């Protein structure tokens, strides 16, 4: 039979470990969820879901993958699951305005994108990208991960990660160019 004192110590240790993870990952998980889902309410709920799953699975974590990879897998899966449930995503398709549409060469695109409203627009557009592209963009740019790390989290080949990144970025570029020409 387990010593109650030992059990209490284990519990405290586990609680402490979990709180360390909350400190290390809550902001990052929340940001990822916010970029993937596009609003704060969903991001909060997704973050809660992620940490419930971490809490539930921490004692069973076998170390087959790195702890960070495991946490990001949970995060990505929770966000994707919420997105598919919501069914409100407006997917940018390749057929949308395939032509180059920058019509105002006097305006620097970078200056335009540095505006607060444009950055918000960009963030909103990430949430509208197809799942794999949005995940790859969020992990690459927000978390600064390389292809290898994204490959491990999304369980897809490096070539697919590259394609998802390129397609996602290209859709954002085209969409932003269209938005710019409208304004």
């Amino acid at each position, binding site marked *: 039979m387990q010593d109650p004192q030992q059990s209490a110590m284990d519990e405290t240790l586990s609680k402490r470990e979990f709180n360390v993870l909350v400190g290390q990952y809550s902001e990052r998980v929340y940001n990822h969820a916010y970029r993937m889902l596009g609003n*704060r309410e969903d991001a909060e709920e997704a973050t809660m879901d992620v940490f419930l799953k971490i809490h539930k699975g921490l004692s069973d974590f076998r170390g087959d993958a790195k702890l960070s990879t495991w946490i990001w897998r949970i995060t990505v899966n929770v966000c994707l699951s919420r997105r598919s449930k919501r069914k409100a995503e407006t997917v940018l398709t390749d057929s949308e305005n395939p032509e*180059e549409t920058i019509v105002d060469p006097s305006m620097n695109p*970078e200056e335009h994108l540095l505006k607060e409203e444009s950055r918000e627009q960009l963030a909103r557009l990430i949430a509208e990208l197809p799942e794999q592209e949005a995940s790859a963009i969020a992990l690459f740019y927000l978390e600064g991960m390389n292809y290898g790390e994204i490959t491990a989290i999304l369980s897809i080949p490096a070539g697919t990660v590259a394609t998802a990144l390129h397609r996602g970025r290209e859709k954002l570029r085209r969409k932003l160019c269209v938005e710019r020409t409208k304004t």
Partner: protein
Amino acid sequence: MKCEEFRSRVQDELDRIGDEILPAEFREHADTCAQCGPFFESLIAVHRALRHLPRVSPPAELITALSKLDKPVYVPMKLSWSPDIRLAAAMVAPALLPYIAQALSFTLLQQILEMSILSLGMALFGIAALKPSFLGGPEYRVAPEKT
């Protein structure tokens, strides 16, 4: 550098080494090509904007709620029968087993088969009737405030 090569390589290079140290040949082509120039400028602009997307802070209440997630609480399954009926069923069923087997048996092989099936059935019945505690599951809750 040709336009085709430029377009097929520029995104890979951007991912691999970033825009600051992109080989000069890309810039040179972009500067001299009417089609690739605007494409390159807007691509770099999106790349930089994505890299500098502002981070958002999670609400303090969320962090507080996360840090209060308690240890899993054991929640036993709900029992469908009253304890008396479950106890009676668990005691009577094995006692009846030999009589049921004898009534059904004609050959030794049949008897062995029937005994095996009945034993398995009774074991499942016993588990279903008693619903031992290990069939329960963990549940998570937010820890109450300490006063």
